[in-house]
């Protein structure tokens, strides 16, 4: 192996999905004759390790086909438990940990903090969106109060008037969702290409469909409320109050 060009990340990625990497565990004599280069992944846990080939390790330690730790790379996030079960069914009784359990500790706390931040920003965004839609529809209905009164006078049903404003709110909402998705797509691409460096590794956002669906549905629901409340408040006024103020 050409140690000058050795890249542990490339090495791990080259294993492919489902590949098994045997990482030897031992205290060994490591000299400058064996070390051939320095690599960095901006990931504290990896950068503090020394990598050698399996053959070299066996020759140094005088062992054959033994390992203290086996890492399994999966192609899809979220299938860890299924694989653990599959391994158990194959009769492997050793201690098995998912990556979340393995890294645990501070990284788990950081991941939890990120989730909390996501929740808070989502909630704040939804509240801001609700207030903006409410204000827009409120201003529209107040400005058109006389018109609403006259529409009611000529026999246009109150529900039709309210529905027209809800429709307006939904239009703003759908436009907002569309532009929001574009923004998320753009930002996700940027941060995937240029991840944010953290001591424990580089971080890039993962946007999942359930998260987008949940946010979009929440926005639709608050738009319905934001459209309904001000238009209902204006449309329920008596015809003469609406026309003459």
């Amino acid at each position: 192996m050409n140690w000058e060009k050795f890249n542990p990340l490339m090495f791990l990625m080259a294993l492919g999905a489902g590949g098994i990497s045997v990482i030897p565990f031992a205290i060994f004599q490591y000299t400058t004759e064996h070390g051939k280069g320095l690599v960095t992944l901006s990931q504290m846990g990896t950068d503090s390790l020394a990598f050698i080939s399996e053959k070299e390790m066996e020759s140094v330690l005088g062992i054959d086909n033994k390992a203290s730790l086996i890492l399994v790379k999966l192609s899809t996030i979220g299938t860890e438990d299924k694989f653990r079960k599959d391994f158990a069914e194959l009769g492997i009784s050793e201690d098995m940990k998912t990556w979340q359990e393995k890294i645990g500790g501070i990284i788990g706390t950081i991941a939890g903090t990120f989730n909390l931040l996501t929740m808070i920003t989502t909630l704040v965004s939804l509240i801001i969106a609700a207030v903006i839609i409410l204000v827009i529809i409120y201003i529209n209905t107040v400005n058109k109060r006389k018109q609403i009164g006259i529409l009611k006078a000529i026999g246009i049903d109150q529900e039709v008037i309210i529905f027209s404003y809800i429709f307006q709110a939904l239009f703003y909402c759908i436009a907002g969702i569309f532009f929001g998705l574009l923004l998320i797509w753009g930002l996700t691409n940027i941060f995937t290409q240029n991840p944010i460096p953290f001591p424990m590794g580089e971080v890039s956002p993962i946007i999942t469909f359930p998260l987008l669906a949940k946010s979009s549905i929440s926005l639709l629901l608050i738009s319905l409320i934001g459209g309904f409340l001000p238009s209902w408040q204006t449309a329920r006024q008596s015809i003469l109050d609406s026309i003459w103020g």
Partner: protein
Amino acid sequence: MIEIKNLKKIYDMGAIKVKALNDISINIEKGEFVALMGASGSGKSTFLHQVGLLDSPTSGDIIIDNINVLDLSEKEKTLFRLNKLGYVFQEYAILEELTALENVYLPVLMMGKSKQECIAAAKEVLEKVGLGDRMDHFQKELSGGQQQRVAIARALVNKPKILFADEATANLDTKSSIQILELFRELNKKYGQTIIMVTHENFHKKYVDRIIYLKDGKVIKNME
């Protein structure tokens, strides 16, 4: 056609009770063009609002086509207004986002008719009010008189039994006012449209069949 019995409207202003309509009883026949006149505060607009189902009187009866309309629910009143009554206000209140044609076919659309039927009915009535060449124009492209004609066309499109006009020419210059009054007269004579109009202007008298003068909520003169 319209039978009004002992109509009263009293506004409760706390310690003071204002009798805006004080026991009015009159009849208006089908095909009549009636003007309601009187000084400000005489009760003419209040009277029009009660008969036009835009407000509810304190007591009395309003019978239109043998239906005591005060017995109707709010929903039924909305339908009654849509089907049988037409309104023209001082403010034209046509929707600026819609063309003249779209503004006029809106009430027909509310009756559940197809778009083709709505357009046909709106075109017919816009022709009738002399706006056949302005159907696709928006509010900002129409003069005040033309906007009021659109409002009149909208009021007439469902072929109402009664057309109410509340100072419909107040925002117009004399020339446009005369055009609107002549249009009302034509609708009344040619199509037998019943019209009840609130006005201040003395020169409007010559266009109507009957003038009802009100003062302090009472009919003081009823002139043919």
